[in-house]
């Protein structure tokens, strides 16, 4: 959040505007980013004061971390698959391993859920709502 705040602060310098002062489009971004930086610094300072920064990893625990990371990786993969293979093929290839990563291990259930989801989206999005799929 500190880095994001600094990015917004320095990024405000690139905003091209004729107006100046509080009415300009730069004033609000500067104020918001300054507050974000201030809060982030305060949080870091508070953690340091309490001696918690070194123990941060102990405070944040993630169960099944590799599965969570794999789920995130699969999620990032999905739009790439969709762009190259189209929605239906991409989903048919993506959903079964995602369900497996999520912890569902029954092959018949995975196949039925994937097929059901594809039929459901085809009926609802393409036929009822008329949303074109990639």
């Amino acid at each position, binding site marked *: 959040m500190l880095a994001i705040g600094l990015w917004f602060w320095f990024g405000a310098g690139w905003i*091209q505007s004729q107006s100046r002062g509080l009415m300009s489009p730069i004033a609000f971004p500067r104020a918001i980013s300054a507050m974000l930086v201030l809060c982030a610094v305060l949080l870091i300072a508070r953690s340091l004061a309490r001696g918690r920064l070194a123990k941060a990893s102990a405070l944040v625990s993630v169960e099944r971390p590799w599965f969570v990371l794999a789920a995130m990786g699969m999620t990032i993969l999905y739009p790439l698959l969709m762009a190259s293979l189209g929605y239906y093929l991409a989903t048919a290839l993506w959903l079964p391993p995602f369900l497996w990563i999520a912890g569902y291990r029954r092959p018949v259930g995975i196949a039925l859920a994937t097929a059901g989801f594809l039929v459901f989206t085809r009926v609802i999005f393409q036929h009822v709502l008329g949303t074109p799929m990639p």
Partner: protein
Amino acid sequence: MIGQGFLFALHHMESWDVVAGLVGGTLAGYCIGSIPGLSSSIGIALLIPFTYGMSPITSIVLLVTLYMATEYAGAIPAILMNTPGVPAAAVTALDGYQMRLKGEAGAALTMSILSAGFASITGTLLLIGSSTWIASVALAFGPVKYFAIAVLGLSMVSSLSGDSMLKGFIGLFFGLAVALIGTDPMDGVPRYVFNDNLLSGVGFLPALIGLFALSSVFSLVEKSADMPAPLKKLPSVSGQVGLMRPYLGPLARSSVLGFLVSVIPGHGATISAFISYGFQKRISKRPETFGHGNPEGLIASEAAANASVPGALAPMLSLGIPGSASTAVLIGALTLHGVQPGPLLFTRNPEIPYSIFIALIVTMPLMVALGLAGTRLWVRVTQVPRSMIAGLVGAMCLLGSYASQNDLFAVWTTIFFGILGYVLQKAKIHPAPIVLALVLGNITESNFRRSLITSRGHLSIFVTHPFAVACLLVALAVFLAPFVRRAPAAAPAPAPSTH
């Protein structure tokens, strides 16, 4: 005027689409509320993409009925499995689950649905009276007063922050910063636009789906090894209204209290349920039995949580300020349909607020009937494995995000906010302040600058209007209240409301 509004809305609602939206929203709400881990805000965010092809009335009816049904259905797993379907149902579980252990599961479910029904009707009547009045007063507001109201709305971060105000502020300022991205609302210059897709700003719906729904998918993946506790015996539920006779006082009190608490922006169902439960326990003749299966506790929490749905809609409809995280998502849904909530809504699009009133009233008997007749089905929904829910909701998030803009950039936005939302949850930074800021950021900035233009740059304009001064002072008090309360290091605060 109210009668005309109802007639106008009824004219617009004479369609099978609206009826289908009403029934579909209620059924979807029951399913979503019955599944622990999915809240009403997640449900609304997931269903918005389905509403693109619908008229604004059909879509708002669908989403509002879903909101209401989800709030009730969260009580089902709370009573049967001691696992709240929505955060507010944690209070219901205190006595509801104890009743189940005593073999009174059927009575507990009957009482919860009847309490929900009564509270929703009471809350809706109060909503009709209050929102039309507030909106008529707010019609005369200029930019100074709007800015003050927006700041008041932002101050509600204090009740959405959970256990750390500082983390709540970080979420708020991060949300305000994200709201800056795009074309400046006054001068029209681009700000932080590093991709052409960002010229109109960060997509509100893709960001919402990411922050609420996709981040929950990662949490579900984390916990998916925990299987729902199997139920050996399904309860039988009856529509015995007589069960409620000894508890009419707590029922009426909690309904009104739940509505009043949730009218204050940011005070959603969870805080209403906690306050109502605490109040009922304080005035009860048997306070020692609370937490041990006292129906008064169950009724107090259920009535307050369900009355909070119309309560949270009051500031949304009349001022354009979200009363809860779910109403923040509803504002996003209305905006996508070209409808801007606020005082002008009652004059520009009167069919929208009055359709909501009608939907809340008409849905109630349907909700009670579905609750009483379909309990066995909702119980089965609670047994769906989390891993299956994670997979299907994940796929739905990405598809829904794509459908919102017919563009893969929206999917990338959702993925970014989904991963960010998960990381922030791990850091105990709740997404609700971010959504609050995304909704109010633009309103705050544009009205602040408009006010300065009218005063030629003098900040004193904000202290010349008594109403604006009052709002800013209340906002300051609300900002500071948690620090004052926490000074004596009292009891832990309730979890932030996410619905």
